[in-house]
């Protein structure tokens, strides 16, 4: 595909605002007490399409400063601890292959996991979609007469909007991870898989605690240690008295029925250990075949994720252990679009993701626009391939009017995400594939599509050397449109479609072919001053001259070797 660098069209969520201004509806950013925060109707599809949403977030200098600082820090830490592992690439190869194997054997492995969890006293539930998973969790909480549940940070429960559902059912879900607590108190949405409040700095967090926590000390400073201690004091009683906890799972081990949660603060251990009842919501792709496979993934995950040799705490449990921890354990196995991703031969490797977030931290696009621009709880490069595939049944990747259809364009295809991915997901290739599909799907659309028309015209011009030469000379007429910096930032229609979202370099005064022809004439006279060939940088001209002199393409512009191809 030659068109993957262009976004076919900018789509908006129906009812959402036009371009750069926040909407007044409930579907996109609104100005709250702590700045604009998104209020999603759906956790995998909120706000404007990426190009419009990115334009808004790019204007937020504070956000960019916070993100720049945080991602620089984490990139350096990761690079340092990955560099000290001599067999890192071998671990990645194994991790990648194990996950591929999991996908291929998924029906058997799921049955095995269910059997082993059940044999150890756990109860396994299956959920086709978010609504079903939410109902299961709410029913368990109600059966335990709990009007409050404590939660371990979990992407799966973010994805299904569990907290909002429970709130509607009269059950308060209390996030206990520090960053999730910050997000929850600010009535905000997460902007990073690992550090959901990465878009907030210490001063903002102090404000949020003072205004929303209720029991924050009045003299609270913005020193991270003090903020963390305020959260400890705030949550302590909740941990000690909670009856029901809800968690996600980093890994589910098929051959033993063991579940794993990886964390730092000890809030996970509190939730997984103290309440009488534990409900774990796990995507069906989070399986690993054997217990010993943990030796691979528990090396890959912490170093990729927080840039630590090992995270402070990892909890492993298998069903119910008499006398130790929750005496009632429920495992909810969640589909919610995963099987649609699995059905895609190219895209299915997005399910290998172990949610480390290394790809977010290295992404030049994520670093600048932040997580909220992606309009999904899964932002960044992995989100750009996972979100549209997960929402395939309700629009998603090839849905012409779906806001998620523009997500595969939220990338420069630089490949940094693939380099750092601990399970070697080839994100750039999947992005290109999804873009191609999006363009193909667009082909059938009725009505005049300026993009399609432009591509068709370009194809006609470029397929013939004579036409291409003429077009090039015509384009030089646009030279005057550029500003003093040689950049066109506001072109007249139809080129305005391009300059709405990016700058266009002004065309030079003469085309390369014109320059070449003049230059070839000069070359026959060694005394000629090459610099007279205006429109090109002189050093550039000399280099071109040296390499091109021997080849001597035909003098006529329309009859170059290029043109005849």
């Amino acid at each position, binding site marked *: 595909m030659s068109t993957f660098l262009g976004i076919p069209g900018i789509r908006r969520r129906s009812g959402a605002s036009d371009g750069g201004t926040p909407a007044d509806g409930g579907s996109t950013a609104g100005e709250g007490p702590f700045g604009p925060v998104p209020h999603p109707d759906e956790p995998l599809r909120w706000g404007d399409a990426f190009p419009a949403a990115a334009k808004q977030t790019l204007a937020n200098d504070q956000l960019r400063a916070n993100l720049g600082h945080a991602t620089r820090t984490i990139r350096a830490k990761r690079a340092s601890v990955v560099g000290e592992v001599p067999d890192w690439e*071998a671990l990645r190869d194994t991790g990648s292959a194990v996950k591929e*194997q999991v996908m291929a054997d998924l029906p058997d492995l799921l049955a095995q996991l269910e059997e082993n969890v059940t044999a150890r006293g756990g109860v396994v539930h299956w*959920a086709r979609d978010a609504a079903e998973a939410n109902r299961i969790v709410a029913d368990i909480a109600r059966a335990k007469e709990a009007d409050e549940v404590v939660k371990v940070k979990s992407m799966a429960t973010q994805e299904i909007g569990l907290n909002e559902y429970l709130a509607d059912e009269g059950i308060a879900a209390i996030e206990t991870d520090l960053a999730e607590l910050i997000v929850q108190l600010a009535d905000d949405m997460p902007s990073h898989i690992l550090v959901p409040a990465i878009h907030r700095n210490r001063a903002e967090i102090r404000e949020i605690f003072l205004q929303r926590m209720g029991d924050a000390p009045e003299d609270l400073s913005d020193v991270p240690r003090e903020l963390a201690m305020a959260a400890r004091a705030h949550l302590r009683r909740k941990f000690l008295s909670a009856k029901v906890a809800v968690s996600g799972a980093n890994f589910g081990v098929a051959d033993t029925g063991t579940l794993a949660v990886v964390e730092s603060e000890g809030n996970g251990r509190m939730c997984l250990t103290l309440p009488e009842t534990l409900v774990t919501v796990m995507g069906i792709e989070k399986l690993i075949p054997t217990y010993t496979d943990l030796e691979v993934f528990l090396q890959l995950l912490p170093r990729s994720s927080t840039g630590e040799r090992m995270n402070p705490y990892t909890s492993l449990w298998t069903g119910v252990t008499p006398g*130790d921890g929750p005496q009632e354990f429920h495992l909810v196995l969640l589909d919610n679009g995963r099987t649609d991703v*699995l059905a895609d031969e190219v895209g299915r490797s997005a399910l290998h993701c172990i949610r480390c977030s290394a790809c977010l931290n290295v992404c030049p696009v994520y670093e600048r626009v932040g997580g909220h621009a992606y309009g999904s709880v899964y932002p960044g490069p992995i989100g750009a391939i996972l979100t549209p595939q997960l929402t395939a049944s309700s629009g998603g990747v090839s849905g012409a009017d779906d806001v998620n259809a523009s997500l595969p364009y939220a990338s420069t295809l630089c490949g940094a995400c693939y380099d750092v991915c601990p399970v070697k997901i080839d994100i750039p290739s999947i992005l290109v594939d999804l873009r191609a599909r999006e363009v193909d799907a667009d082909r059938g659309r009725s009505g005049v599509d300026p993009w399609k028309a432009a591509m068709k015209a370009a194809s006609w011009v470029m397929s013939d050397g004579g036409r291409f030469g003429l077009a090039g000379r015509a384009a030089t007429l646009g030279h005057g449109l550029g500003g003093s910096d040689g950049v066109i930032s506001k072109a007249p229609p139809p080129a305005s479609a391009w300059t709405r979202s990016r700058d266009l370099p002004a065309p030079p005064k003469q085309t390369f072919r014109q320059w070449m022809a003049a230059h070839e004439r000069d070359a026959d006279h060694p005394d000629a001053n090459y610099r007279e060939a205006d429109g090109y940088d002189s050093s550039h001209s000399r280099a071109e001259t040296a390499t091109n002199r021997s080849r001597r393409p035909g003098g006529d512009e329309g009859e170059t070797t290029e043109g005849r191809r």
Partner: protein
Amino acid sequence: MSARDDVLNRVRAALGQPGVGTTAAGAVGATPADVQVPREYRSAGEHSPGSAAVVEQLVDRLVDYKAHVHEVTAAELPDRVAELLVAPEQAVPESEAAGGSVVVPSGLDEAWLGALPSDVVVHRDVPDSPLSALALDEVDAVLTAARVACSETGTIVLDGERDQGRRAISLVPDVHLCVVRTDQVVQTLPEAVRILADHPGRPQTWISGPSATSDIELDRVEGVHGPRTLHVLLLAT
């Protein structure tokens, strides 16, 4: 059709199996190719378990995590335990002082408590009458053994056996004294996992330093909800 059958059929459809319907989006996928899993990574380190090199590496990692490390012999251990529990200002800064009460699992080596003065309250957590979470919150410290330690990652694993106790006792008290025998220290994670794989069903807690968070500007702060102070007593064997 039950949700279970529905989801499993969707998975089979996604993997190209005929006759089970389609995924929610109406797709039937292609059958994946067979997968060979390469295992070229190190399954053991160059240093043997319990060697001076792995012990030194473990100490380095633990100190990096801001844990307190005390290398002791069996003869010194009871006195050091008593020192850390009773007169903490002699061993560690006062702010990290363990206090006058300690909870221990029922299977702990009683000799380790041999030097404790009589005014230290020792709670023995027995399965028949476990301490409540609120009661544990009133206890100053916990003393446990460990199952295995990994030097490369600075990780100590507890697996809930009688000398380590149930998970809650090593979680709620603010100070954790953990005794690791040097012959329990292996270099690589695969070596540790293969020891743990003998009893995969035991509830495990992998501990790499005291609790910590990096949620505020990715600045690491040690000490959040789990024990804020971790003393590792490395017992020479």
